């Protein structure tokens, strides 16, 4: 029997056992759809996180006080020394490194913002004017620490704060109290929404000196550094580490991390997560494969007289094997195709429901899902097909 007749005849069989075929196709389809949807979710989360993190800035290097590595205790700890502060002076020196385009020292704290009878606790960022370009923030009104005003009591409000405290929209030039000091509102941030769980619409920005005074600290929370180019990131990190080690009496008591390294870590973790989820979904495909095998075994038992007839008509064992094989192939093929469509529809609905989540199924997952479905279907049909082909024609004709 030629290939075309084998495929036609087996398709006819699949179609005629409608309920049975529908159920098994459904099982297969759900498995494939699960792989597609879950990997779309996983990969969407990965892209979301990576995208958010990239939106923080480009070519960033962060300096944190203290050592984050866990290679033994801090060398000075045994002598009762505390880590040295990361100071504004340190930041000034780092700013002179050739690989550094610009930097922004950062202090973060919480303080009460009051004006016109309104009171609210807000997150306060103390920094310099450089923070805005480094963090890709934009002002919708006014300015922040324009040249010559570095030491004045200015404050920039996030867009939500500005709207809350000055509903008339005239925030710039007004006065507002932060903690115990009065500040002049010099600008309003453009709405940016949330990034990395941090809503820049609800923060207040003040000069670093005022922040250190407000929070009573000499130590910086971070130094944000933008390297000149992508290739300068690694040299910048090494130069910063070297410089601060020298300035801190030869002790490496700061942590220097690059945005790329963090990004790569996130990327790795979330990829692994996606892969794990895909693996779990693939188990349902294996179950569907066992279902195919069971259904095909039942089909062989059900159609024993028919197999006997085909043998009597002169069908060689190979033809009968191929017929059952093709039948399983049709079932898995339909399951894989419908599952792929279902999965993509599901991913589309997720994208509709959560527009910020780029839930596109990765290509490898779609290919792997469909391929696994076909493969399990094919493997599952081998045993039933072989059993059908081996049947004794005389016994098969009498239905035994």
């Amino acid at each position, binding site marked *: *029997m*030629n290939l075309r*007749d084998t495929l036609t*005849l087996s398709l*006819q*069989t699949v179609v*005629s056992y409608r309920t049975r075929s529908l159920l098994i196709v459904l099982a297969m389809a759900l498995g494939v759809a699960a792989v597609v949807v879950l990997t779309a979710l996983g990969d969407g989360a990965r892209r979301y996180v990576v995208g958010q993190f990239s939106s923080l800035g480009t070519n960033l290097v962060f300096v944190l006080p203290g050592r984050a590595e866990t290679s033994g205790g801090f060398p000075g700890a045994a002598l009762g020394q505390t880590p040295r502060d990361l100071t504004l002076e340190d930041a000034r020196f780092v700013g002179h490194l050739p690989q550094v385009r610009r930097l922004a020292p950062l202090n973060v704290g919480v303080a009460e913002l009051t004006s016109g009878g309104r009171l609210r606790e807000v997150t306060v960022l103390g920094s310099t004017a450089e923070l805005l370009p480094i963090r890709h923030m934009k002002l919708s009104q006014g300015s922040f620490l324009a040249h010559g005003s570095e030491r004045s009591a200015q404050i920039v409000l996030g867009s939500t704060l500005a709207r809350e405290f000055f509903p008339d929209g005239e925030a710039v030039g007004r006065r507002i109290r932060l903690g115990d000091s009065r500040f002049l509102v010099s600008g309003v941030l453009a709405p940016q929404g949330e990034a990395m769980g941090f809503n820049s619409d609800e923060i207040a920005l003040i000069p670093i000196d005022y922040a250190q005074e407000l929070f009573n600290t000499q130590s910086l929370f971070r130094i944000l550094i933008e390297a000149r180019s992508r290739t300068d990131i690694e040299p910048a990190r090494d130069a910063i580490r070297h410089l601060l080690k020298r300035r801190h009496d030869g002790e490496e008591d700061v942590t220097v991390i690059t945005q790329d390294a963090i990004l790569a870590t996130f990327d790795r973790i979330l990829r692994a997560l996606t892969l794990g989820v895909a693996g779990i979904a693939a188990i349902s495909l294996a179950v569907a494969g066992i279902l195919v095998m069971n259904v095909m075994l039942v089909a062989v038992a059900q159609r024993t*007289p*028919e197999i*006997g*007839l*085909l*043998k*009597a*008509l*002169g*069908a*060689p*064992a*190979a*033809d009968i094997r191929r017929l059952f094989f093709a039948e399983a192939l049709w079932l898995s093929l339909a399951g894989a195709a419908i599952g792929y469509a279902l999965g993509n529809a599901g991913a589309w609905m997720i994208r509709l429901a959560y527009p910020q989540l780029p839930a596109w199924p990765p290509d490898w997952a779609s290919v792997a899902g469909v391929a696994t479905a076909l493969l399990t279907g094919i493997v599952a049909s081998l045993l039933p097909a072989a059993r059908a082909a081996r049947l004794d*024609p*005389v016994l098969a*004709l009498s239905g035994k």
Partner: protein
Amino acid sequence: MIRLSAITRVFRMGDQEVRALNSISIDIASGEYVSIMGPSGSGKSTLLNVIGLLDQPDSGRYELDGRDVTGLSETERARVRREKIGFVFQSFHLVPRLTAAENIALPLMLEGVAPTERKARVDAALDAFDLGDRARHRPAELSGGQRQRVAIARATILRPTALLADEPTGNLDHRIGAEVMELLEGLHHAGTTLIVVTHDRELGARAHRHIAMRDGEIVADEK
């Protein structure tokens, strides 16, 4: 030309051996019309299955059209069945999913005949067996006589040299049975060897040669 020499077929049922065929030797010439009769368990169906290469003897030699077919592989036997043998069964054995035309086309499909030629030959067979208006009906929509006619059309579509019928009228009433027999005898007149297994005396008597079996042995062979 069918030549069986000392054919023995033994079945094991538990620890008991049943000799379904006990050293059977017969020659059936091309174009003969033979009936094989005998009580249940006499071995007549087994003999038919051996002749049709569905069953293999445990010992003995079987020559079909001058060729020793005793030791053929399963694939080769399938090929001989397809080309030389046509089966007609008591229960018709039509594929319920397929239409009358598709059932008749099955052997052509197995043989690998091209679709256009296949269609022409199936149409001719449908006309020859008076099934022209039943081509697209499924077996469930056909009467018993029509079903057996479809089965006979299927068995003869590849023009086999021998037509083997096992109780071909067993599931049909007397009048329809007689019509089916006339159809088979018509094929015999056209040159096909016709071997009918039955325990219906009247039916067996219509053949030109009568073989009687009992306990796996031929007890009478009369022309």
